[in-house]
């Protein structure tokens, strides 16, 4: 199974998991790590390395971070390694929920692309979707 690590500012990752669990029940095998402003960059880097290594069960690790360009993401990118570590930035709740339902199997890169695409698809401008739906219904009934 591919290991999942959620690395965010503060408690965001933990809260994502807690919230997801209220929707889909217990989530297994997802580790979270939060950065905080009182911690130095070197010790954070060591923690990031530790959780990534610990989550690897042989099929690689997918790291989900909260924001491209932020410290959690910057630190994680240093550990990018083909077939071993992939990083997807901009984690959202639909992605976490999806992870609970999916068999987390490789190839790692394809799995990472799948999670990225799923997260992107779930960002919507609701009024556009509603409008399109109404349009579709109208066309069908015409």
């Amino acid at each position, binding site marked *: 199974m591919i290991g999942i690590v959620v690395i965010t500012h503060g408690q965001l990752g933990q809260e994502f998991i807690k919230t997801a669990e209220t929707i889909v029940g217990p989530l297994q095998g997802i580790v979270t790590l939060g950065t905080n*402003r009182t*911690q*130095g*960059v070197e010790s954070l880097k060591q923690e990031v390395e530790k959780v990534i290594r610990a989550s690897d069960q042989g099929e690689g690790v997918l790291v989900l971070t909260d924001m*491209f360009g932020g410290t959690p993401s910057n630190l994680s990118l*240093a550990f990018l390694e083909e077939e071993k570590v992939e990083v997807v930035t901009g984690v959202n709740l639909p992605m976490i929920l999806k992870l609970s339902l999916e068999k987390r199997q490789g190839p790692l890169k394809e799995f990472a692309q799948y999670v990225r695409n799923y997260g992107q698809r779930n960002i919507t401008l609701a009024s556009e979707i509603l409008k399109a739906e109404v349009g579709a219904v109208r066309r069908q009934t015409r």
Partner: protein
Amino acid sequence: MSLVLVRVDDRLIHGQVTEVWVPHLTVHRILVVDDRVAQDSKEKKILTLGVSSSTQVEFLTVKQLVAQYPKLTQDKTRILVLFGRMDLAYQVYIQGFHYSHLNLGNIHEESGTKALSPSVCVNPGSFGQLKTLAQAGVTVTLQAIPSEREVSLQEFLK
């Protein structure tokens, strides 16, 4: 030269910089001054990724920054200078790169440190350097992001 912010931040370019300081001060150029990072092409790439393409990013060693001082004084662009460590900010000043204001963002030093704010923790050596800069006329303040109250180093020198 328009040095809109001279900052010590051990995270270098991260969310506080790209999301807040750069738009807040309309920064055109970011100069990252760190001898180690200047040699590390992977880290340079990672740090640059989060910056919008309208902002230029350059990585310099202390020596390169000091050498550029005359040229930078003619520069009309709005520049943010970032140091990864306190001693680098001190060294450039001693070597002639004179700034009037130093912002302390994130510093997490070890052994015998004094916490000046939740994100600034300095050892006695760095504290001494800060005092020297303040005596030389530099306004030293602590402020992680613009919405936070700016605290003067003077409050710790009383």
